[in-house]
């Protein structure tokens, strides 16, 4: 398989963020939580690369530490939806019949809700916080994975090798795990790359609205919200965390696009 340059660029960018997150204590020039009343709202300088916020915390160090939270949220947030979606989608597509009908009616009901609105109202009921965001994602986010996995399973169900496995007397669960699942995986993985971007984005949006990670955490959405009232005088407080989000999101999006190209998946 020829490596797509897009995939390599994306993977490089994501790897870079991984290194930044792991090496945060070494890379940060200041303590991300240290309040310094001698250095309030200072513009970017050699001392403070990205300036300081309204209580004198160093924005550069906070952005660096924010990478940890972003990757944690993005990667952990897609696991449960993927597992649930795969399980439902593969079962529904492979067996068909009433199992499929029920699963698809549930999907039909989930589709009209704007994704972010539903996540928001679930978090509203459960209370703010990152754990509840994960629960909301598990409840809502599986739908996309289920649709993809189901479409694959329907095609694979009538493929020759599955038929052959049936005639040889293998059980349905065995065929599902050993033959259908591996072959249905590639579109799901491509979708997952885009999903990581969205999960990071929505997580930060929750932080921005005051319903995600609680302040004073060095979380990018929280930081953007903290800089909001200073945007006309101290733009750097909100600007740099947002830029970091774009760069991490572009990394995963490029990986997804490149992978789709390599695997020849229509999107």
């Amino acid at each position, binding site marked *: 398989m020829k490596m797509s340059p897009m995939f390599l660029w994306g993977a490089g960018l994501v790897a870079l963020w991984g290194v930044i997150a792991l090496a945060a204590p070494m890379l940060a020039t200041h303590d991300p939580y240290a309040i310094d009343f001698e250095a309030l709202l200072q513009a970017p300088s050699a001392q403070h690369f990205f300036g300081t916020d309204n209580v004198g915390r160093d924005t550069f160090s906070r952005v660096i530490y924010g990478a940890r939270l972003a990757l944690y949220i993005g990667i952990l947030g897609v696991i449960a939806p993927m597992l649930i979606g795969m399980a439902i989608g593969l079962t529904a597509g492979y067996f068909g019949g009433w199992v499929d009908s029920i699963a698809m009616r549930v999907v039909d009901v989930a589709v*009209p809700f704007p994704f972010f609105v539903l996540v*928001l109202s679930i978090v*509203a*009921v459960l209370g703010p916080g990152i754990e509840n965001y994960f629960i909301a994602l598990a409840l809502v986010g599986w739908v996309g994975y289920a649709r993809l996995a189901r479409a694959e399973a329907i095609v694979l169900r009538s493929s020759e090798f599955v038929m052959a496995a049936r005639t040889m007397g293998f059980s349905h669960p065995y065929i599902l795990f050993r033959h259908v699942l591996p072959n249905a995986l590639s579109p799901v993985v491509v979708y997952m790359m885009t999903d990581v971007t969205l999960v990071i984005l929505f997580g930060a*949006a929750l932080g921005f609205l005051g319903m995600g990670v609680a302040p004073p955490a060095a979380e990018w959405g929280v930081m953007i919200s903290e800089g909001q009232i200073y945007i006309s005088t101290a733009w750097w407080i909100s600007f740099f965390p*947002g830029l970091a989000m774009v760069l991490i999101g572009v990394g995963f999006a*490029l990986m997804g696009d490149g992978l789709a190209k390599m695997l020849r998946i229509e999107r």
Partner: protein
Amino acid sequence: MKSLRFIVSRMLQSVPVLFGVSIVTFLLMIATPGDPIRLLVGVRASEETIALIRDRYGLDDPILSQYFTYLGNLLQGDLGASLRFKVPVSDLVGQFYPVTLFLVVYSIILILPPVVVLSVWSAKRPNGLADQVIRVLGVMGLAIPVFWMALLLARFFGVTLGWFPVSGFGDTFIEHLHHLFLPALSTAIWVIPILTRNLRSALLDEMNRDYVLAGMSKGLGEAQVFRTHVFPNSVLPTLNLFAVIVAYLLGGSVIVETVYAVPGMGKLMVDSILARDYFVVQGATLVFALTTIVVMLAVDLISGLIDPRINT
């Protein structure tokens, strides 16, 4: 006759979805911690008042009959009452919903021209400059946080240049257009790449069809074949994406309205969550879902009427 049957059957298909949606919002209410009625009437309300309201919303009944009470109330347009404003939620919806609708329609109007231009341009020269631009925009568009973009636009066009107001809705139609320009632009930036990609691939598919060759061999100009045959045929697949886009825009409106302090459903919802005004949150969620269902239905009906192959 046939198209009437199509319209009716398609509308009937929405009924189970509507039931499902009402079950979801009902469950949201059930899962709410604490006693919503106690919150509604305040701590000093008498036991009789509470009993009266509990009876009104059937809160002491088994869950299934609670659901039917809820459904019955919904069908009469009763979405409960707001704790904060002390008015029925339906009144609030009537007041805030038009603003959001204005914002969504406005965004769509801003989205369509660049989508058509960019996709036609790039489809005519695959892998040309426009194609590269769209690829970059597509990747960026996905990754840009809407609330951050909204803040930057407000700072640059609102504060630095002073061209647009950065909050509120205004009083006249012209003022609405002026106030909502930046909010609409913030959401549009996100959606343009998605739609462009879609329309572009539809155009490329159609351009390789036999009828294009046939048309040109009959002496029609390339431009004319494109205008009268390729383009109309490519619109349908994109139209199907429209309901998804409206859902995106509604979700985005929640964030954008908060940044720009636009008095729409999104801001109402966020403020109500922070104020624990649960009936409003639930009502807003329901209204958002209903909007998407109506758009989905409209898109299906329109594509069915344009393309007779669909309505069988």
